[in-house]
């Protein structure tokens, strides 16, 4: 998932974090409601439109998806062979395409492959929706959300600090890497044992440095009064605007429609 905030001024950026969270939940329900890949494709398109709206960096998305390719293929294969015909409501889905092993064992069902495709598309829409959420919502907003949801201050503090220290630790990692390279360390040894061994000179100083840093961070936090009270002043009051009510109504409507289609019209199953 993309975690860095993408500055912008679209409607999605301006929505209240709670509305966005609700929308996220809505898409989650939507995509778990339907089993038919056709409907999933519709959802992916919908999320794709959202992504297009906030001008998501396409290259990054592609780079994120690429390593997943083997997983995608294996998911389709596994579902194709393991879902027995009895698990599907529709007759067309129960059809068996061929048997992988002689003697009528391990049959590949049409429904199984469709199910695999659904899983994949579901994964896609989840990735896109969550990226849209994180890209348009600043860390501040998330902390606000946690606070509104009565999540303890410690937890949101932990999250903010963790995110603050990612670049710092990465810088440390680079410095350590350079220092060890200057002593002739090679970080491209072959084999699993070799590569683990070659990373010891990197990992140990990184752990030690993190512990030292954590120690002085705890001092610095106490120095600045952290933990005196169990809450703190919020830096920004979030509030609903008319656009939030509109958006929530739209999402509700969409959800009701979806439930109606799925359970009344009995569409979208397998």
């Amino acid at each position: 998932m993309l975690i860095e905030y993408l500055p912008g001024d679209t409607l999605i950026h301006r929505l209240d974090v709670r509305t966005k969270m609700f929308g996220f939940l809505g898409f989650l329900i939507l995509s778990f409601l339907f089993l038919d890949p056709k409907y999933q494709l519709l959802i992916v398109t919908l999320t794709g439109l959202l992504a297009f709206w906030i001008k998501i960096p396409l290259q990054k998305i592609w780079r994120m998806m690429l390593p997943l390719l083997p997983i995608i293929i294996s998911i389709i294969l596994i579902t194709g062979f393991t879902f027995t015909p009895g698990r599907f409501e529709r007759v067309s889905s129960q059809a068996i395409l061929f048997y992988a092993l002689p003697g009528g064992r391990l049959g590949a069902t049409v429904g199984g492959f469709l199910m695999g495709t659904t899983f994949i598309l579901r994964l896609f829409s989840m990735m896109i929706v969550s990226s849209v959420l994180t890209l348009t919502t600043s860390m501040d907003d998330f902390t606000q959300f946690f606070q509104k949801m009565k999540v303890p201050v410690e937890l949101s503090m932990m999250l903010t600090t963790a995110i603050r220290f990612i670049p710092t630790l990465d810088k440390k990692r680079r410095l350590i890497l350079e220092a060890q390279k200057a002593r002739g360390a090679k970080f491209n040894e072959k084999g699993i044992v070799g590569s683990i061994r070659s990373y010891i000179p990197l990992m140990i100083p990184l752990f030690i440095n993190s512990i030292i840093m954590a120690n002085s961070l705890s001092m610095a936090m106490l120095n600045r009064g952290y933990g005196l009270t169990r809450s703190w002043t919020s830096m920004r009051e979030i509030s609903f605007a008319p656009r939030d009510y509109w958006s929530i109504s739209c999402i509700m409507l969409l959800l009701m429609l979806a439930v109606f289609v799925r359970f009344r019209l009995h569409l979208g199953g397998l």
Partner: protein
Amino acid sequence: MKTVKTVETIKCIENAIELINISYCYPHVEEPCLKNVSLTVQKGKFMVLMGSTGAGKTTLSLCLNGLIPQLMEGKLTGQVSVAGKNVGKTAVQSLSKVLGLVLQDPETQIIGRTVEEDTAFGPRNFLVPLDEIKQRVDQTLAKVRLKGYNHRLTEELSGGEKQRLAIAGVLVMEPEILILDEPTSELDPIGRSEIYQTLADLRRKKDLTILLVEHSSEELIHKADEVVVLNQGEVAWRGIPTELFRNLPLLRKWGIKPLPVSQLGWDFYEKGWISFAEIPLDIPSAAGVIRALLPKYGHWQGPAAGQSKDRLLKQEPFLSEKTISVQVSDLIHQYNSDQPALRGINLTIEAGEFVALIGQNGAGKTTLAKHFNGLLKPTSGEVIVEGMNTSQYDTSDLAKTIGYVFQNPDHQIFSATVEKELEFGLKNAGFKGQAIKERVEQVLQYTGLEKYRSVHPFSLGKGERQMIAVASILVLKPKLLIIDEPTTGSDWTGVQTMMALIHKLHAAGTTIIMISHDMDLVAQYAKRIIVLKDGEVFRDGTPQDVFANEQILLDSAIVPPQLCRLSSQLKDILGSETFIQSSEFTALFESGEKSRC
């Protein structure tokens, strides 16, 4: 009315800090870190705490805000009170309202992602209303000269800015007492004077008590009201700074760096030429003293004679055969899409030279140095080191002939004993069994680390760890040694030990390239100085040539060492000569002394 007034005056001389018989022992350590320390600091004073590494300076400041014993275990006896509050009985968090402590490393004190978020952290914990927080944040940022930085990301700030932000984070809670633990150790001279300027401003504007922990500094002598010297956990001396800095034997005893001009003055004092109070502490008074003494005791034949003598000295190195160690041609380096960090560097460094690379933070010193061992490859141009074109070799291959010691030893130490740490480089270079043992043995002796052979490196002090870092490179017997800031955070004794080692290596024929902010060291040891500015070579020459023109150097934010500035003040007497060693100054008087006898 009268009673009110007396109450007020009593309040005025009230002590901000009061320590009574403090002793503290870290857990699992037998020797106490602080021994019976009693100390009072009056309200509104600017006090400096000095002493060598391990004297207990940091420990003392942690005692003052209650982190000892509330966060750290160990045995503490005695009583600490701060602004009338008993530290033992007040939580660290409540104390932070009256006493602000800025720790050494700014990186781990910055909690927020943006400057505003970070500065607001303290007041938010005290549930200060939002409007007031915003107001206070803006005011505080203006005080530390970070006005308008509110929405900048903290990770993108420079070292000096981070340090000032760390101070802001504490100041925003409006404490009465401010304690700073070595806030300038990793800054360049400009960054350092900015911090001191900030402190001076703060003091003027508000009745703030300041306790500053520092190794030593020229600028502080006239700013601080009082100095306290800690030595091995005990208060060794207390008084006004000028007293201390005139007394050279005391400074030597406690491992505090003396000022170069006062060193000169001490010589005169010992000869009985001037009184103790006349020992100069700044350049104008030093110039005055020399002017006054020259006619009486001097033996100066004018610039011409001195110059010819100097010429002879200079020519000596040229007699030996030249081999080129580093050859840089048209080097340009660009990180990502930004402005180039290096723009067209041309350099030749001969084998056996001692070169100092100086310049402001961000001038490109480290970027250039990293090209010498292949950690960075040229964007365009060529770097040939010891006959190898760095773009064709991997760093791990170059490491066998080119040593690079980084600033922070903690970034490389990973073994359980000093001995094993030294073996790492040799193993990488393909050495086996007996050969490794022999070389490690040699280097342990050479660096004086023998006694720590089977000790865990992290149980040693910073100075020793720095030495381990150097030793772990020396085992490879590099022909060229690059050292990045070998003395940051070390005390005077540590600095001298390290520089003596580097000097010994240079004398043995190793080519040395040293990156440093310490101009006194650069002037004293380097034979050639390269000044970088905005990714270009700004000046290149002998220390005498480079440091001669103060005005030009100011452009690249470099302040020449004290003695060079002194000699440019004495231009009318010395002519075009620039003196950089104190021996050159004393030489002015040597013959005169003889004639007196």
